[in-house]
């Protein structure tokens, strides 16, 4: 009977396979790779050859921890500057998305109920069309001989083309453009659930609409603000495609440094070390995000 019971309980939940399959999948493709870049970041490039980097066929004792890549990152001001400027651009993107997105989400949540699905779909639609193509589209708009300059010049507003491409301006346009929906969607989800009766109660108690907005709507949508901000901030820090296509060489972003270390310099330990520091940078906002999500789930 005892074995039979074991057999049945296992049949009853099928637990082992259901947990085992995704576990194996993520261990192999998410956890192990991260450990490997951690390990490689602590080794050294020997010569220009790639293969002699992989020295673990010689066994563990051969591996000596080598912090030179990290030393380099923290001594060379270019890396520090790049990290700081990545954070700066990410923060700026988050802020601009919030300033544009919050009122938008608020108005959307207050618009007639039958309109809301359409309005929502219109926000989602660009998300379904290629991100790369949309960034490319901005390039055609912002180039010196691009559409905006051409239109402005033909209207006589300007005489010479404005330098918009390859500036922080074009970078911010691209980032805000790409990540705005990530700000709007959680905010809308939050604001549309907001109970209008709170505002009615506030009005009933003599609060002006403006005050009610700051005292009630904003605090109650805190979870949405945090979620949206983190969903914008985290991916923008490591963004590669937008700075590569719109930012030009003058705007420093860490994603591009990583790419170049790997593809141009073939310096794997350096690329890995840059990645590890980037992961550490992301951990803090990630923890904030997870905490706010867990709290929202509790409610």
């Amino acid at each position, binding site marked *: 009977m005892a074995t039979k019971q074991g057999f049945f309980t296992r*049949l*009853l*939940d*099928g637990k082992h396979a*259901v*947990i085992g*399959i*995704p576990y194996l*999948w*993520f*261990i192999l*493709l*998410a956890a192990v*790779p*991260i450990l*490997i870049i951690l390990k490689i970041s602590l080794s050294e490039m020997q010569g220009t050859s790639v*293969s002699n980097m*992989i020295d*673990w066929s010689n066994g563990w004792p051969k591996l000596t921890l080598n912090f030179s890549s990290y030393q380099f990152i923290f001594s060379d001001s270019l890396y520090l500057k790049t990290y700081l400027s990545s954070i700066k651009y990410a923060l700026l993107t988050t802020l601009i998305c919030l300033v544009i997105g919050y*009122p*938008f989400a608020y*108005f*959307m949540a*207050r*618009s007639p109920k039958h309109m809301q*699905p359409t*309005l929502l*779909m219109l926000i989602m*639609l*660009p998300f379904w*069309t*290629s991100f*790369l*193509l*949309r960034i*490319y*589209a901005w*390039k*055609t*708009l912002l*180039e010196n*001989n*691009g*559409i905006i300059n*051409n239109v402005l010049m033909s209207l006589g507003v300007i005489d010479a083309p404005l330098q918009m491409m390859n500036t922080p301006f074009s970078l911010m346009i691209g980032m805000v*453009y790409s990540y*705005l929906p990530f700000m709007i969607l959680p905010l809308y989800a939050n604001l549309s659930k907001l109970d209008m009766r709170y505002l009615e109660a506030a009005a009933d108690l003599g609060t002006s609409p403006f005050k009610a907005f700051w005292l009630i709507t904003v605090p109650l949508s805190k979870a949405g603000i945090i979620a949206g901000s983190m969903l914008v901030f985290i991916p923008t*820090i*490591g*963004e*590669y*495609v937008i700075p590569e*296509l719109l930012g030009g060489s003058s705007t420093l972003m860490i*994603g591009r440094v990583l790419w170049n270390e*790997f593809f141009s310099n073939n310096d794997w330990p350096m690329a*890995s070390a840059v*990645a590890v520091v*980037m*992961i550490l940078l*992301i951990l803090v906002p990630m923890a904030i995000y997870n905490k706010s999500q867990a709290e929202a789930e509790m409610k």
Partner: protein
Amino acid sequence: MSQATNNKIFSNLWMIAVYLFLYLPIFTLVVYSFNDSKLISTWTHASLRWYEALIKDDDLISAVLLSLKIAGISALMSVFFGTFTAFALNRYKRFKGRTLLSSMSSMPLVMPDVIVGLSLLLMIISVQHWLGFPEKGLFTILLGHALLGTAYAAVVVTSRLREMDSKLDEAAMDLGCKPWQVFYLVTLPLLLPALISAFLLTFTLSFDDVVLSSFLSGPGYSTMPMVIFSRARLGLNPTINAVATVTIVVVTFAVIASSFYTSHQARKRKREEAQAYSDSNK
């Protein structure tokens, strides 16, 4: 009253401005794909020249076909593993290492693509040194896209699982279903809409990815975004506008059609429920 009207005008203007911002680039992309000029930004006159160029562009066509193939397979893989992940995390609330699984599964969502790509590539190279395979190419791109897709599919399936009544599983078992029968007779049919949207989402993600593919592809395997990216880096290219227009048209139709379908279904359901209620009160 005038205060309220002003507010209304302000909010409408704000929304219109945001929608303009979101759609302006897409709109110009489409319009200028019909521009005859080689200089993309100067309008001369309408023509289908770039579409002809597109049809003759073998590199791009084969890249599109490769991308479709990768997107299809990796989306299937994503839905498969994502469903398992969602089940593991939602049906078994307590098991050793649940937190680890949940953070591993959300990792590809939050990690920048460059890190996911780099770490996967270095892992694959390590394995290659050990075992002699896999070669960089189709299989490695699939792994990368499926990893990313699994994370997204898990989110989509999870949200559906959460709203599904777990009593239905028990009812099925109570009526004589063995666990695997419960899955394919009850859970799977109810999960189907979520699986379809997970498939579409992960298909789109894969079809759109440039960073992971760049890390993971080998010689001879250039996906459509990789080709577009390398051309866009060099400058403007009207053929890209033509490709863009084609994808935009396809996607827009698909999205609008599916959202009409779902809202139609929802309305029908509401009507029927109301009907059932009024019938019972007769």
